[in-house]
């Protein structure tokens, strides 16, 4: 690779060729400076080089290998006859400081401006060489907007995935269009100008010069391309960039490009498309919204009470909802709660408001080695452990207001019955295999070490604490015997390998049936992207038989006489828990679980649970051939981290379910914040400072403020009765905005986009606050009749919006939602009327309606309070922890107004004694910098950028320590106190 640079350098500074030729530069600033120094050189060297060349100011072109856009730029440069520095960089080089992603080629102009569009670079170079470019613009626009997206996708498919027919299909449209365009031309070029030929020719070079691409019979296109590729400028540019390696050369470049999104027109509109829809209202829309809102509440009786047992009903939308069964042996942490039960709860509450016939079941997963281990640790029997922790789980979920219809457990009679029934059906149908297994046996403890009885080094990622069945670090499943340096968890001895007979579920035999079902389920239901991807990767690797038995005591006994001393492996029988828990709820459980025609099943979980719900469990049910209900919608979250580190029970890091209550922060606020950061699409991180900020800015100042003001105006100005409303344009516009947000909210929640839908609620109150602010009812009420009427209308509309918000809030913050309705004395069924099938923004509180006593809904989270909590739950941080993980507790100061200009990190590092004022400023600066680092990390910013910011943070901390009169060097003992 190193020879390339020299070749690309048309002008290399004398004496420094080796440095410049290296394709990976770490210090770009240095490079730029060298270029500046090299400027005078051309005068000396110019004459001896090709005589006719003109100097292109002090421009510099950055190119990278295997990037077709660079072919464009280099060809244009050669054609222009201009001289210009060319520097080879690699694909990750961020040449343009303001762009988030590295983009190459880049032309640095003498003015210091960066041109980062290859097409604009070509245009400039050719224009500078006196060539006209205007006529090419239309083809260039077509190239950028129509051809490039297709091209990128096609190259992706062909070069990285080897799917040539799909690649050809993607390109068919644009190439066909170009062929037709060319066939109507009388010359063999695209226009009279060379610009279009260079740009399109270079863009298509990898595709049209590679026989692997099946472009079909396009004679005019081929003829044109043959002309273009013969141009010397094009030839040499292509050689420099692609090195005659064809598609192979592009791989590095393509891997760095964002994956092109597949536009599937047959699928229902994706959420992003819905969001792109025009928020600007037309007059008709505004009128229609206002008209709809004049409708009062329908005269229906109160919401029908839930009657247990809930069973599927003909003609209704029957929704069965499960959240992954939490392991009984531990207290769930916030990540567990948001990942399964809380997410499912929001959807359950929403579904009930929508009038669906919905059953939400869950329960503790109690069998398995983990429980046996825990029992040994605590000196109890497994059953006692289960009883103890089942109660703990129940209490936590009750506090979080999780609205299970039934919360059961897996250690029941029905579990044994149903698991054994499925087992026998699989056995009878020949879907079970018998095999001897090499297993780790601890000579000391006299037993086989299954799953979690053994720990060792992960064979894939070398994580030292991988468990016998799965590595927590890389998430891959492991066979215990593959572990490096295995250790018995009980006695720390090294186990030996012994063989034992086991039963396997024959997944390969079920694979084709599974794939058929998956195709249908994933295309018709709502599967999150991570769920689809994880499932796909499992299938791509090919399925292998999976062991379903274990040498344990605490489990569902295997009924087969040859295996009487064994139990089912938890992942065979844990998902069966969904069925048995339902069976414990109602004897008619089969109406839910053997009824795929009528029932729609949603599974909620964190992403590590996906393969068991999308592959293993469906295979058990398909193989049992008993008309089981299979999952239609699989909703998986990413991970929630704690202040940029992992939740860890052993290190005492993070907030666990039972502690949330002790913080004094209401359950609803916890729910709000967790849902606000629900790891939808990517990991997110819990942060105390952010929680305080969101509580104070969103709940208190935005949502609470609006609802409270609306209610207060009614009580104060209108004797507690909703005033008469005479809608004017401004009111109608607000109503239209509210209706639009409501529509979004419903569309998003229907697709289980829980976090995004929450934003709609906050948008409505933001609109509402603005509306009150602009209309100033508190001033108008003192005016004449017209003004008083205006004040009445604004108050009336606002209080009705507040009532709507109470309905929209119900899935997220049930207590707050009820409190709002109580304060407004709103009818109980207004939520279901608003969100039901024929719902919408209704005038639920008509003129004259008396409201109750209005009081504030939220409380400010004070910085001292948050500081104390952060300390309490921070755990013992090891000294070598990344700095962002242990931002000092004073960080919440950032929530207080403080001019950022007051903190200048560079001033006065020489304070010797403690300086409280300065320390305060620095603490704020540290907090701010800490937030910045966290933000960068969560955005997955460039490592170098993060490192730079972390260094800044460390410096600030050092200064803070000095200002506080401490030793700036971290004391070595601090982290070891445990």
């Amino acid at each position, binding site marked *: 690779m190193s020879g390339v640079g020299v070749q690309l350098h048309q002008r290399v500074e004398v004496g420094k060729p080796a440095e410049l030729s290296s394709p990976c530069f770490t210090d770009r600033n240095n490079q730029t400076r060298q270029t500046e120094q090299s400027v005078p050189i051309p005068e000396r060297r110019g004459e001896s080089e090709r005589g006719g060349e003109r100097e292109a100011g002090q421009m510099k072109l950055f190119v990278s290998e295997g990037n077709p856009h660079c072919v464009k730029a280099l060809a244009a440069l050669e054609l222009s006859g201009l001289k210009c520095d060319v520097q080879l960089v690699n694909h990750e080089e961020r040449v343009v400081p303001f762009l988030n992603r590295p983009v190459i080629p880049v032309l640095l102009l003498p003015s210091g*401006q960066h041109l980062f569009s290859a097409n*604009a670079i070509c245009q*400039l170079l050719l224009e*500078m060489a006196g060539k006209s470019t205007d006529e090419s613009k239309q083809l260039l626009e077509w190239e950028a907007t129509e051809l490039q*997206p297709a091209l990128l996708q096609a190259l992706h498919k062909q070069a990285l995935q080897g799917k040539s027919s799909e690649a050809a299909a993607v390109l068919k449209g644009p190439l066909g269009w170009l062929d037709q365009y060319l066939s109507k031309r009388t010359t063999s070029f695209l226009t009279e100008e060379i610009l279009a030929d260079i740009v399109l020719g270079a863009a298509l070079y990898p595709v049209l010069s590679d026989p692997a691409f099946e472009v079909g019979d396009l004679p005019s296109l081929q003829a044109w391309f043959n002309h273009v590729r013969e141009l010397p400028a094009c030839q040499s540019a292509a050689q420099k960039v692609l090195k005659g390696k064809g598609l192979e050369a592009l791989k590095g470049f393509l891997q760095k490009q964002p994956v092109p999104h597949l536009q599937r027109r047959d699928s229902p509109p994706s959420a992003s498309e819905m969001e792109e829809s025009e928020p600007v209202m037309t007059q008709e829309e505004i009128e229609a919204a206002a008209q709809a809102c004049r409708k009062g509440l329908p005269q229906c009786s109160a919401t029908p009470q839930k009657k247990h047992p809930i069973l599927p009903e003909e003609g209704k939308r029957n929704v069965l909802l499960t959240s992954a069964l939490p392991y009984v042996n531990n207290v769930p942490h916030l990540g567990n709660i948001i990942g399964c039960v809380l997410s499912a709860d929001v959807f359950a509450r929403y579904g009930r408001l929508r009038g669906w016939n919905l059953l939400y079941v869950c329960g503790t997963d109690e069998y398995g080695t983990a429980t046996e281990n825990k029992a040994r640790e605590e000196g109890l029997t497994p059953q006692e452990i289960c009883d103890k922790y089942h109660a703990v789980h129940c209490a936590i979920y009750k506090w979080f207001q999780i609205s299970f219809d039934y919360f059961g457990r897996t250690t029941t009679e029905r579990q044994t019955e149903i698991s054994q029934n499925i087992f026998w059906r699989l056995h009878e149908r020949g879907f079970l295999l018998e095999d001897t297994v090499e297993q780790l046996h601890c000579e000391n403890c006299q037993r086989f070490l299954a799953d979690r009885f053994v720990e060792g080094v992960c064979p894939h990622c070398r994580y030292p604490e991988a468990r016998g069945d799965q590595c927590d670090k890389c998430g891959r499943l492991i066979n215990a015997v593959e572990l490096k340096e295995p250790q018995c968890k009980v006695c720390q001895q090294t186990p030996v390998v012994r063989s034992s007979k086991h039963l396997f579920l024959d997944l390969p035999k079920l694979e084709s049936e599974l794939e058929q079902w998956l195709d249908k389920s994933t295309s018709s239901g709502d599967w999150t992207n991570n769920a689809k991807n994880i499932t796909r990767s499992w299938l791509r690797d090919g399925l292998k038989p999976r062991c379903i038995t274990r040498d344990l005591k605490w489990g569902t006994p295997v009924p087969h006489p040859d295996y009487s001393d064994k139990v089912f492996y938890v992942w065979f029988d844990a998902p069966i828990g969904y069925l048995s828990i339902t069976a414990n709820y109602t004897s008619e459980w089969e109406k839910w679980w053997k009824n795929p025609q009528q029932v729609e099943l949603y599974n909620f979980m964190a992403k590590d649970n996906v393969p068991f719900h999308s592959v293993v469990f469906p295979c058990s049910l398909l193989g049992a051939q008993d008309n089981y209900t299979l999952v239609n919608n699989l909703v998986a979250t990413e991970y929630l981290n704690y202040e940029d580190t992992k939740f860890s029970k052993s290190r005492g890091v993070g907030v666990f379910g039972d502690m949330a209550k002790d913080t004094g922060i209401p359950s609803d606020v916890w729910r709000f914040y967790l849902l606000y950061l629900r790891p939808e699409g990517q990991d997110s991180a819990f942060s105390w400072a952010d929680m305080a900020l969101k509580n104070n800015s969103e709940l208190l100042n935005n949502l609470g403020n609006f609802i409270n003001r609306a209610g207060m105006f009614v009580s104060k100005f209108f004797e507690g009765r909703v005033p008469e409303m005479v809608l004017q344009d401004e009111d109608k516009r607000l109503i239209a905005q509210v209706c639009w947000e409501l529509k979004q909210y419903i569309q998003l929640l229907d697709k289980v986009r829980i976090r995004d839908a929450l934003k709609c609620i906050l948008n409505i109150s933001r609109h509402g606050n603005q509306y009150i602010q602009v209309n100033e009812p508190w001033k108008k009420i003192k005016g004449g009749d017209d003004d008083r009427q205006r004040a009445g209308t604004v108050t009336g509309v606002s209080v009705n919006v507040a009532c709507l918000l109470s309905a929209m809030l119900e899935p997220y913050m049930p207590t707050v939602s009820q409190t709002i309705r109580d304060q407004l004395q709103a009818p109980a069924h207004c939520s279901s009327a608003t969100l039901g099938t024929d719902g919408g923004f209704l005038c639920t509180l008509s003129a004259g309606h008396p409201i109750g006593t209005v009081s504030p809904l939220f409380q400010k989270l004070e910085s001292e309070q948050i500081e104390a909590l952060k300390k309490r739950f921070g755990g013992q941080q090891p000294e070598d922890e990344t700095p962002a993980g242990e931002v000092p507790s004073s960080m919440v100061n*950032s929530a207080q107004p403080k001019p950022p200009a007051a903190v200048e990190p560079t001033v006065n590092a020489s304070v010797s004694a403690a300086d409280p004022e300065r320390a305060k400023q620095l603490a704020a600066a540290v907090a701010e910098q800490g*937030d910045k680092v966290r933000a960068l990390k969560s955005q997955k910013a460039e490592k170098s950028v993060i490192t730079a910011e972390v260094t800044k943070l460390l410096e600030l901390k050092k200064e803070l320590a000095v200002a506080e009169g401490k030793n700036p060097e971290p004391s070595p003992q601090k982290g070891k106190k445990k």
Partner: protein
Amino acid sequence: MALRELSSLEKCLGLKKPNKYSTQGERKVPVLQNNNGPAVVGLVTIASSLVRDAKKTELLGNTAEQRAVVQQWLEYRVTRLDSCTKDEVKVILKELNHYLEDKVYLAGNSFTLADVLMYYGIHYIIMELAVQEKEKYLNVTRWFDHIQHYPGVRHHLPPVVVLRNRVYPSGQH
């Protein structure tokens, strides 16, 4: 959308006779039928030709360099901005915010077609921003406010309220 934009641009350029446009394809690419020649296709291409019709070519840039910069931001508008997903919105705002840190207009010190089309294209995003976000993307907001008050530009779009005094203290941008 694009069509409304083009008719606003016509007004902005002071063109008396409104053109008739149609669209083609899934992406609804605007098309301008010409009596004396082939159709003009694509938002940028049509907009540029309107600018030439109005004899205001300074809006396309006065030097070759500036013309390339204008072209680049027009391309950014129809590629990056027009096809962006929700997550991408933040990236775009960040990039523009960084870029506009030391600039009055997209092409530096003079108002160009790039400002007009970028303004039309980004309007729906800025509309949706919370006060806090507007402060976060301060340079974009400043530029946006400047363009929406530029004589004759706004037309079909509602004005976006921009607060002059800062509300949120943390102020990281």
